[in-house]
């Protein structure tokens, strides 16, 4: 079980889902705070719901409000960066670039990518944390 968890964790790095920031978070975890990383990740996924909803609503009602879209995405990207979500962060950057050039279709398309990566990482991390917990 422990080997499985380690394997999954390494795969997440190898496949580019996570970057060094995730390692930084792991370094902050110890006996006094044994679930720190999982807590931060859970917080991220809870908090990002409202940001995703906000972007969706804006793309639906005022898709050319690029300033607003960029602002929300800036927050979302910041949080993604803080947990080391490498692929999510990349898609966020791409989305912001579409905002910069005022490309509505690009934003809409790219936002799907953002959501996909966001969901994919969630699944993988949930699986990893479950394995890690069972291994203890």
């Amino acid at each position, binding site marked *: 079980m422990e080997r499985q968890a380690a394997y999954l964790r390494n795969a997440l790095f190898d496949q580019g889902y996570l970057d060094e920031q995730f390692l930084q*978070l792991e370094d902050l975890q110890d006996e006094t705070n044994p679930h720190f990383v999982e*807590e931060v990740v859970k917080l991220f996924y809870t908090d990002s719901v409202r940001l995703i909803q906000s972007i969706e609503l804006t793309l639906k009602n005022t898709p050319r409000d690029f300033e607003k879209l*960029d602002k929300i995405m800036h*927050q979302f990207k*910041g949080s993604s*960066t*803080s947990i080391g979500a490498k692929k999510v962060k990349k898609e966020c950057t791409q989305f912001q670039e579409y905002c910069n050039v005022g490309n509505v279709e690009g934003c809409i398309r790219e936002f799907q990518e953002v959501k996909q990566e966001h969901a994919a990482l969630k699944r993988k991390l949930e699986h990893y944390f479950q394995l890690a917990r069972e291994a203890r």
Partner: protein
Amino acid sequence: MAVEDIGSGCSSSGDQEFHVLAVDDSIIDRKVIERLLKISCCKVTAVDSGSRALQYLGIDGERSSLEFDELKVNLIITDYSMPGMTGYELLKKIKGSTKLRQIPVVIMSSENILARIDRCLEEGAEDFLMKPVQLSDVERLRDFMLRGGEEERELGRKRKTPDDSCDCRPLRKRPTPLATACSSTFRALEEPVIVHES
């Protein structure tokens, strides 16, 4: 849930722990910075906005001076981009207050914009940290503050005046490795400079 008061698990040598007020609208970043500061043996109070920070510091005059002394904040670390009051605006308010201007302020930002960094340092920010903030950043900051703070109390020096374009206070033995107002050098980053300012 605006104010979170978290004590440090570390035993401090003196009766006074190093108390940091952390300001960030992101709940994730607040959790991480709290952890970084706690691990570095700091007492942490985390708030989610500049206005709440000012409330906590008693700048709106609600807090008596006695209460303020008991809550003594040794360092303020704030995010730059926040809705409402930015970290820069908070910095200006703090440096503009006779009561608070002595408290060192550090700005955090995810965007590496030279003009922004210079602006903050010129306004009196102690340092400018790129996000995501690392444990090494916090430890270096704490060590620097602990050294500088003692000297400041001894000498009773005032913090920089608005006339100073160069933040070269005699308290510093050497310029902070992260940034100075004069040279505008800062920690090397892997990512390219983002020119677009949101």
